[in-house]
């Protein structure tokens, strides 16, 4: 295959399938990533708070969940979500199969991202110098006040950039969801190739789209980081 025939193939894929397939694929990919990251931030915050709790059982449980998520492949976790979520909520079986798969995958990705985000938040808090807390406590403020007014505002500066990276990672990981044909970008790749048999051109197009999404996001995060640094 020559370079020009590759370009031609790519152009064909874009012009024929942009409207029906690729556009909605991008939308689904972004939606899935957004759900996973927002849900992940909520779960991750709860986990991070839980890990600072005095209850040993709670701390142990959270550490166990985080370690299991970090120590097993994401694809395996998606399979587990795909089979387990409907088992726990039988009502879901009456849903449209694609919607059901989407929900299952979204749940699994959210828990996956929650585990990583909880580590990001924890390390962000730990990276704030202990002296900051000590200074606040030495002035007679409670541990809660020191955390909310002094430590967390500083931790956010450590957390936000890492959270951006997590978002970027999750966008790439959504491609695993194509195993269950949930309609995101990689599913569309399979759909298109099923018709055209032109995997190379389609892969290139899809790859470029992923790259543009992540590159734009990473640039955006850099700008945000710089503006935060300029502030303090």
């Amino acid at each position, binding site marked *: 295959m020559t370079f020009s025939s590759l370009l031609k193939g790519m152009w064909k894929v874009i012009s024929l399938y942009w409207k029906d397939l690729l556009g909605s694929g991008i939308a689904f990919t972004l939606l899935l990533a957004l759900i996973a990251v927002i849900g992940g931030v909520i779960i991750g915050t709860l986990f991070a708070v839980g890990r600072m709790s005095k209850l040993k059982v709670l701390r142990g449980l959270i550490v166990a969940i985080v370690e299991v998520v970090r120590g097993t492949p994401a694809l395996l976790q998606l399979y587990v979500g795909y089979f387990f979520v409907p088992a726990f909520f039988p009502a879901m079986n009456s849903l449209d199969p694609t919607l059901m798969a989407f929900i299952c995958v979204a749940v699994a990705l959210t828990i996956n991202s929650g585990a990583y985000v909880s580590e990001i938040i924890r390390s962000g808090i730990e990276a704030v110098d202990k002296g900051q807390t000590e*200074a606040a406590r*030495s*002035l*007679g403020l*409670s541990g809660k006040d020191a955390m909310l007014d002094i430590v967390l505002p500083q931790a956010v500066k450590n957390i936000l950039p890492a959270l951006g990276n997590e978002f970027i990672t999750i966008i790439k990981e959504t491609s695993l969801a194509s195993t269950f044909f949930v309609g995101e970008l990689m599913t569309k790749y399979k759909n298109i190739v099923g018709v055209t048999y032109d995997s190379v051109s389609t892969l290139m197009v899809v790859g470029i789209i992923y790259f543009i999404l992540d590159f734009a996001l990473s640039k955006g995060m850099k700008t945000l980081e710089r503006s935060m640094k300029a502030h303090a």
Partner: protein
Amino acid sequence: MLEIKNLYKNFGSLKVLKGVSTSIEKGEVVSIIGASGSGKSTMLRCMNLLETPTFGEVWMEGKLLTPVDPYLHPEVIKASNTFKALTAQGMDENAAIAKIKAEDLLQEKHNKEGKEYKALMDKIYKENFIDIDHARRKMGMVFQQFNLFNNKTVLQNIMYAPVKTGIEELKKAKNYNKETKAKLIADSKERAEALLKRIGLADKANVYPSTLSGGQKQRIAIVRALAMNPDVMLFDEPTSALDPEMIGEVLDVMKELAKEGMTMVIVTHEMGFAREVSDRVLFVDNGNIAEEGNPEEVFSKPKDAHLKDFLSKVL
């Protein structure tokens, strides 16, 4: 004013303090000197419970900051089952107390020492304890690394604690409304500005700490503590992280404070300064106070061999 009784502090298997006792009087300036790792900073940090002592008690203005240490209260020992068992064997009361103290025989876990013992411990605690956050409001602390709040401007650094604790007091007195809050903030601001003016940094009120020199940071850290109107100020090696040319400006602020009659406890390596401002100098060695006295005695006629050695190295 501030008293530590038989303080022990272990970090794991490392024994840092080994039964330190001293009492700081009102208006007194006490310097704590000693080699690195001797336990002098730990001793200071135990005074406001930034480190929790393993054994022993800390008292501030007649109030107990730590849990009750049974070994410091003969009547508590007498109420214990261990004491009763020993005297039942025919041992003399004083001998039994001495033996229990020396061999650390009290077993507090699972109420092994009986109800009477527990009730007495609770009674002493309830009669004397003070909430640590409230106690700390009367003890200013200055750190080696300054520890200014990086996310707040200089003025906010100084105003933060007075406003926050002031609001808490107002709420407690059921006197919290828009006017009292506005007055509190205005008063705190006025005081913060006056303090900044006093150290000649009024023009830095609205900048962030990252733009300041070490000497400026430390002077601001001192007035931040002063903004709470403390009864005693604790200094943990306040000049050790400074460039040599900035040490003077910080020591000057401290000297002025001492002149005004502030009660101060200072952990320091600045021997000249300790000699000049202190009423009393403590030499800490290997987790104990090896020698104490007025600066003249300690610096000119040291008795302890380690102190002599230490002074010959630093002077």
